[in-house]
């Protein structure tokens, strides 16, 4: 409310030359008046948290906003706590939430009453990739070796590690089981880093870690990437481990494993916020994307740098929701009670 009145008064005072000035300066009229909160619907140290904290650092280092940015973790109920907080903060223009795929999976698996339609979409910052990893000591050099090894053994022999339960890692695992035709044991861990270490220690047989979670072990020669679940190869051609770059990893589909998945890293705001506030944040994110620190984060994590706003973004999210609903139903992950 106060924002509209501010705009009105601004218009009244500056009505003489305002139209001219406004068209000359494309900057929006809205400015944050106190600290901006970024809610992370996950614990500290995860991918979403890292991205939010990096952005906090970038924004303060380059003074991109007049007000400080605060990162708050609300991980309860598989992130449901964070989404509820944003849903209930109607009209709060100083609150943003960074999402991961639990935007879709948490309401479906737990029955917590939230949906992305309860919030205002702002922008897609990037898409996070998933790579199929095995321990480098294991004999599987290609996807085919790996699939053959699974097929050669009875159901529930191969152990797949992943982050959380009924979330992206387990969804990929279920899709992978379907493609291979054998059941695997899925062992949930609290964080991606722990999953990678369990794989290095040979306590599990494979993982679908994000690139940034496993890259250090790949470079040290402990893990081996077999394929990437993106429909196309990763763009990054710098050598990472030996002669291999991210670009040298084949897509799973081309290697004969028909599973595709990418994860949204994007922002939403509470419902009922003004268009001006949304476009302020879109501008802010565009500036963030131009900084060298952001580019470095993208390269380190081998992110897919798609950027979307407005209707295009909302459409993408709607499609992703449908896709998740199909996968979750098929896997039997939908909430039964509550």
């Amino acid at each position, binding site marked *: 409310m106060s924002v509209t009145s501010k705009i009105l008064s601004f218009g009244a005072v500056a009505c003489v030359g305002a139209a001219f000035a406004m068209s000359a300066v494309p900057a929006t009229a809205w400015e944050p*008046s*106190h600290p901006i*909160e970024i809610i992370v619907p996950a614990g500290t140290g995860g991918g979403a948290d890292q991205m939010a904290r990096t952005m906090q650092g970038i924004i303060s280092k380059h003074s991109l906003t007049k007000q400080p940015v*605060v990162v708050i973790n609300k991980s309860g109920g598989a992130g449901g706590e964070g989404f509820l907080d944003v849903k209930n903060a109607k009209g709060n223009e100083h609150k943003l939430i960074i999402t991961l795929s639990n935007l879709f999976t948490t309401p479906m698996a737990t029955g917590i009453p939230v949906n992305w339609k309860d919030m205002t979409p702002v922008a897609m910052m990037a898409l996070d990739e998933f790579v199929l990893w095995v321990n480098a000591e294991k004999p599987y050099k290609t996807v085919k070796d790996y699939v053959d090894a699974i097929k050669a053994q009875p159901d529930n022999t191969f152990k797949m590690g992943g982050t959380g339960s009924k979330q992206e890692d387990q969804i990929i695992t279920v899709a992978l089981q379907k493609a291979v035709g054998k059941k695997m044991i899925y062992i949930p861990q609290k964080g991606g880093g722990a999953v990678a270490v369990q794989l290095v220690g040979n306590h599990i047989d494979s993982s679908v870690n994000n690139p940034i979670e496993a890259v250090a072990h790949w470079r040290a020669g402990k893990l081996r990437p077999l394929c990437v679940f993106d429909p196309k190869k990763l763009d990054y051609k710098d050598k990472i481990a030996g002669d291999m770059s991210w670009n040298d990893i084949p897509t799973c589909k081309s290697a004969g494993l028909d599973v595709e998945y990418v994860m949204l890293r994007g922002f939403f705001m509470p419902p009922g916020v003004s268009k001006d506030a949304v476009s302020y944040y879109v501008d802010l994110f565009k500036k963030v994307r131009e900084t060298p620190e952001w580019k470095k984060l993208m390269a380190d994590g081998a992110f897919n740098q798609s950027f979307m706003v407005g209707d295009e973004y909302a459409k993408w999210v709607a499609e992703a929701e449908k896709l998740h609903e199909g996968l979750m139903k098929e896997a039997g992950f939908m909430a039964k009670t*509550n």
Partner: protein
Amino acid sequence: MSETVHETGGTGPSHRGVEAGVAVVIGLAGLIAVIGSLRVGIGWADDGPMAGFFPFYIGLIIILSSAINLYTLFAATNDQGLFATWGQLGKVLSVVIPTGIYVGTLPYIGIYVASALLIGTFMMWLGKYRWTTAIPVALLVPVLIFIFFERWFLVPLPKGPLERLLGLYA
């Protein structure tokens, strides 16, 4: 709860009565755990225990041990005297009630105003301080907290109408 007279004077609830109450409340908590577990499944699925497996048996153990505690309590013949005198309980309530009001109003009037009221009331009512001492302390502490938490460490705390009026929060 039966009333007993304590040797040192004053009356109050008997220790046995209160202890029985505590055992019953803990037993009820166990019962809630059992009911909640039944709703999510207490079985052993093919891949290990289900979500309610552990809470279910934990709930059962709580109920069982509370029952044993109740039994031993009433099997014992010696009188355990008073839990506390009414005067002592009154003092405890003189902290619990203001704090209850504090936590109840805090979401609406904000933590700063509520804290100032709590500190002021506590000092003047229980500490018998003059308002000349109590009010400065009651105002200073929230201000320091604001500077420290909100300004330095950027930790947002609950705010109410006063902060909105001062333009600290939209």
